[in-house]
């Protein structure tokens, strides 16, 4: 197994606040790795460390470089990409000029890169930076990274604020980079379905820690103790989530999608009064590329949950009302 990165005892702080805390994590070469997590979970910080633009406060980020200039092997697309105040062509060719490529090669590669992200090279090459829509600007920024044919491509929320078509083009470009040049792609996103669709593996970050290698569901506090060992959390829409064995008021529970059982609301009435049960609406289905599992994204209590679909998929098509049920002994707790 060839590795692109190995992280050892990484702690990264801004002031007194530790924003990243990863004891051990390896990232294989030629893989598409997704990073998922809530706002402030450390996704962007991790990508900047992997891009070697920042050094961890403690610990080490080992990058197994192929050449003597690792900075030329890694390309990072920041969350809010900035286009230089020049034409689209100059924006995309900038990195190649730094690397000393010839004029003819630059022209060919820039035109290829624009095509990969679904932009017509003839129509877009001469456009100025201010004459682009948000989605077009995002794709130009991605083309500026793809044109470098990097060994590692780091993408921070590339699908934020772009339409479905741009999201599809970005997905195609990522797959092309991996398949044609063996690029290792590490991509963070809030869009769980999009990540399932693109990635081979997923790293789940929560408050700067790796909490799983999939898209675990997170149930935050505050919890209120009822009688005995029973605790209750009230979701924003008023739904009550009863759960035994909660370790504290601010405990955070992690539930694997395969441990989150799903029933159509019409047939699941017998579960209505049970613990660890919540009602929601299916918003989408996606297939995990690495395992072939079908995962449903369900909005319940105002938050997204992932549940593995077992049985008849037709019962869980988008828009269907469902009941989600977790077994208390399958919930992992973080205090």
């Amino acid at each position, binding site marked *: 197994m060839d590795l692109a990165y190995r992280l050892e005892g990484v702690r990264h702080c801004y002031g007194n606040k530790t924003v990243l805390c990863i004891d051990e994590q390896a990232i294989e070469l030629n893989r598409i790795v997704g990073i998922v997590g809530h706002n402030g979970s450390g996704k962007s910080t991790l990508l*900047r460390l992997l*891009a070697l*633009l920042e050094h961890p406060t403690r610990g080490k980020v080992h990058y197994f470089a192929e050449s003597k200039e690792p*900075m*030329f092997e890694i*390309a*990072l*697309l*920041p969350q*809010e*990409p*900035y286009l*230089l*105040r020049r034409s689209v062509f100059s924006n995309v060719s*900038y*990195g190649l000029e*730094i*690397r000393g490529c010839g004029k003819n090669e630059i022209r060919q590669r820039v035109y290829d890169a624009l095509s990969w992200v679904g932009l017509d090279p003839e129509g877009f090459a001469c456009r100025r930076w201010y004459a682009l829509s948000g989605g077009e600007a995002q794709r130009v920024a991605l083309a*500026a*990274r793809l044109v*470098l044919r990097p060994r590692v491509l780091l993408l921070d929320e590339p699908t934020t604020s772009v339409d479905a078509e741009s999201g599809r083009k970005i997905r195609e470009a990522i797959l092309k980079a991996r398949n044609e040049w063996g690029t290792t792609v590490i991509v963070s996103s809030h869009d769980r379905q999009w990540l399932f669709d693109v990635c081979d593996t997923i790293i789940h970050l929560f408050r700067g820690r790796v909490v799983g290698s999939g898209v675990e569901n997170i149930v935050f506090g505050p919890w209120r103790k009822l009688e005995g060992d029973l605790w209750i959390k009230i979701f924003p829409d008023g739904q009550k989530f009863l759960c035994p064995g909660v370790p504290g008021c601010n405990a955070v529970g992690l539930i694997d999608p395969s441990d989150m059982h799903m029933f159509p609301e019409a047939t699941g009435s017998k579960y209505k009064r049970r613990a660890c049960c919540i009602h929601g609406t299916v918003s989408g289905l996606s297939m995990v590329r690495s395992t072939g599992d079908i995962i449903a994204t369900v909005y319940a209590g105002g938050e997204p949950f992932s549940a593995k679909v077992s049985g008849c998929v037709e019962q869980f098509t988008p828009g269907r009302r469902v009941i989600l049920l977790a077994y208390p002994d399958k919930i992992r707790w973080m205090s």
Partner: protein
Amino acid sequence: MNYILEGLRQAVMLLVKWDPETYAAIRATLTVTSYSMCASLLLGIPAGFALGYFDFRGKRVLRTMVDTCLAFPTVLIGLLVYAFLSRRGPLGSLNLLFSLSAIAIGQTILALPIIMSLTATAVESLDRRLRLTLLSLGARGHKLLFTTLWEARHALLIAAITAYGRVLTEVGISMMVGGNIKWHTRTITTAIALETGKGNFGLGIALGIVLMLIALIVNLSVMSLRKKS
């Protein structure tokens, strides 16, 4: 009113007939301002970039000092340069006093804080994402410097125009360290001051017209550059 109109008529005649005294003053002005602008841009842009881009101890104090120097009176600069270049001064052996070089040194001191301060402001006001973008594309060292300055090019042009305007129109430095020597160190502004004192309005107005024309040409050139970029 008549003597002003007569002055204007004389001015046109002097310019049209290529009056050697008038054109000597124009040549001296263009030469000395070119030297001083080159020197102040070469020193001021990198210094202003460092002041705006990097965080270091004493940055605020330095910034305050540079900004204070924006109000440097030209006669005070003239006095300082005179003190250094006069025979008794530390640089007296260079024999630069009452030469175009002396005026250029003084004007460089005048323009430097303007270029530094406006460059620093231009760099500070650039989008914060620019640095991360350039680093993520592999830019380091001088590439990072030049691309950052190129992104701030419009603001840098404004800085250069502002400094040129100040250098072109100053009298104190040229008079004190240039000596206003006819055919040699007499610039447009010192010539206007002298000729007006002598009641020679024609030459004064002619030089005034030229001064405004130079300012207009410089501004038009910069506007055209802005459009192209």
